[in-house]
């Protein structure tokens, strides 16, 4: 079995491409993906900055072909087709590289803002969604559990999570380049999701004059407003709110921009020469990109924020050396576990082989002896104990050796010596190991 990861992120694809692949409900596409023969298990991670599929397959070539088709046909469903150079935006990792990439993603080492705290939650959400739609099986499930453990280690053992550089913090830094003081400024948040909630938490300490939350669902806006001492509004109030606002932060679902050029132009007429700072972290974007052409309007989308944070990210990157070491260590640990799976069919077969001999010989012997129930039980236990003791050392050795590339020779030798049949099935595909049993609870 092989692990493959295919996807695109903020480094490989522009926002214009990423926003077309954004998936709100991953269940449908995932179920379709794992229904195909090429993919045995899969998890789809879809965030503002990345869309990635981590999959288990028996054939890398077949999986590669299927996943590329999945990205270009199933995920891009807006009817506009994909750009001719779409393949250039995709990256692919297989086996160890795929494992390493996922561990880095979960640990926020591959994030636009290195060390940001949101990605771990997003990866956990992706894992949960895959479990719920039975796309995630024991091996990919174990990989994700391992990724969460790694992320936890990175956060507790390194300084990368100290003073996390969030989108809100970058936005505040930028706001200081635009405004002299933030104490007399009004902010409008459009949306009421996790990103807006995180931004509200970060902006709470900045001391803005007022914050308004506008959302499609007024109840959710009201809930946030109560928590963060803001005011709640419906989306229809956006034109009025923007006309009196200095900072607008948008992150709301939907395919059409909620902040159009007309709204901002109308607001500008009322604002005279006061600058307006717009931060759009929605994917797809919530604002018309044209508004950036307007004077006194400074629009930053998620890619722009990444670009301006690059200098801060450089400082943070220096702190990631230790984090990368943790990832390497955990990757090797998972590699070992995953490689040891190769020994499972041989071990199962060998156990079955020995058990068959034991049972056969025991039955022959018991037929010749006149023993009571108690004695028969004792003899059976004795034969089991002898078989287990004989097998213990070689099986342990096989497991250990299977973790190394060279260990395959031991497996081959065992098969030859004991006359085991080839063509055994991987336990991961056995009836008890099919999808839907994604492992233990998420940490």
């Amino acid at each position, binding site marked *: 079995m092989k692990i493959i990861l295919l996807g695109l992120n903020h480094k490989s694809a522009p926002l214009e491409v990423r926003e077309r692949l954004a998936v709100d409900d991953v269940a449908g596409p995932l179920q379709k993906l794992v229904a195909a023969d090429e993919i045995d298990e899969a998890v789809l991670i879809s965030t503002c900055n990345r869309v990635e599929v981590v999959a288990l397959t028996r054939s890398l070539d077949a999986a590669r072909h299927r996943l590329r088709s999945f990205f270009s046909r199933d995920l891009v469903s807006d009817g506009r087709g994909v750009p001719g150079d779409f393949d250039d935006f995709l990256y692919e990792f297989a086996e160890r590289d795929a494992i390493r990439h996922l561990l880095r993603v979960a640990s926020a080492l591959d994030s636009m803002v290195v060390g940001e705290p949101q990605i771990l939650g997003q990866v956990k959400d992706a894992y949960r969604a895959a479990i719920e739609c039975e796309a995630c099986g024991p091996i990919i499930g174990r990989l994700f559990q391992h990724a969460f453990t790694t992320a936890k280690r990175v956060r507790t053992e390194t300084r990368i999570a100290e003073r996390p550089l969030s989108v809100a913090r970058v936005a505040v830094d930028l706001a200081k380049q635009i*405004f*002299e003081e933030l104490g007399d400024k009004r902010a409008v948040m459009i949306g009421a999701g996790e990103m807006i909630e995180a931004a509200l938490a970060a902006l709470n300490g900045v001391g803005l004059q007022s914050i308004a939350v506008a959302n499609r669902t007024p109840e959710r806006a009201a809930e946030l407003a109560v928590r963060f001492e803001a005011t709640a509004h419906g989306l229809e109030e956006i034109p009025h709110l923007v006309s009196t606002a200095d900072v607008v932060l948008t992150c709301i679902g939907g395919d059409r921009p909620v902040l159009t050029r007309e709204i901002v132009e109308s607001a500008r007429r009322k604002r005279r*020469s006061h600058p307006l700072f717009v931060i759009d972290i929605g994917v797809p974007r919530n604002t018309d990109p044209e508004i950036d052409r307007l004077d*006194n309007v*400074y629009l*930053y989308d998620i890619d722009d924020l990444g*670009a301006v*944070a*690059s200098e801060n990210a450089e400082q943070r990157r220096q702190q990631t050396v230790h984090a990368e070491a943790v990832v390497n260590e955990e990757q090797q640990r998972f590699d070992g576990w995953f490689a040891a799976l190769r020994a499972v069919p041989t071990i199962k077969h060998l156990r079955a082989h020995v058990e068959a001999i034991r049972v056969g010989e025991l039955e022959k012997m018991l037929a010749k002896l006149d023993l009571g129930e108690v004695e028969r039980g004792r003899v059976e236990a004795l034969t089991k104990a002898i078989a287990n003791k004989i097998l213990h050392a070689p099986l342990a050795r096989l497991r250990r050796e299977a973790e190394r590339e060279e260990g395959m020779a031991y497996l081959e030798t065992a098969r030859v010596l004991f006359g085991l049949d080839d063509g055994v099935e991987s336990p991961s595909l056995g009836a008890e190991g099919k999808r839907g049993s994604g492992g233990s609870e998420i940490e």
Partner: protein
Amino acid sequence: MIVQLHQLTAALYLIAALVASLGIALPAPRLGRLSLTLLGVASLAHAACFGLLHSGNATPALTELTMAVSFMALVGTVFYLVLAWHTRLVGLVVLVAPLAFISVFAAGIHLRVVRPAVEKTAGGSWEHAHVLLASAGLALLGLAGIAGLFFLVEHRRLKSKQAIRPRFRLPSIEALDRVNKAALAVGFPLLTLGVITGVFWTEAQTGRVFSGTPHEVWSVIAWAIYAVVVIARFATHQGARQAAASAVGGFVFLFFAVIGLEFFL
């Protein structure tokens, strides 16, 4: 005494400029604030220097170009310091301090050969008032131009999404716009008074209100340009970027009209 004090002033401006530059190079915000303090001390010494000049001579050599430029530097620096007291403008010191140093250094060379007394000429008090007011106006409009220039730099940086410089920063564009506005609001009336007193001076000297010298012609054109800039800024909905560009363009023209012509003609 005056010469030594002028030299001390120049040295203080130079140190302020070096400390400000070091503050950017390291970068170290504390050095930025220190340079602001040094600039304040230098401007006090500068003011004392002009005070001594006035007390020692009824008509100090302000009508000399270098001394006029030195006076402009003093007015511009003091106005900047007043604004910096209320607004986060530390970043501008990196340009204000070197300009003040160059002005005072040039005036210092002149001071060594300054004549003990200036010959009284017809309309001497108008001349003095004209130079004082026009220099002050030019200084403030120069400050508006510097703020406008920095605004355009910051505006371009923000629009092109360049990386945030985490420590030492230029003032915010809002602060720069405020400086531009304030300097224009005070500088234009001073320039207007400078033009009016210039007319009286010309009238006292030649008997006509307008003698048609290149200085007069270009100065009146520059004033007219600024009048348009001021109307656009305060009476219309002109955007901050256009206001900044106007301040830069206006000052370049005014500088040429008032000082550049001295070299070309």
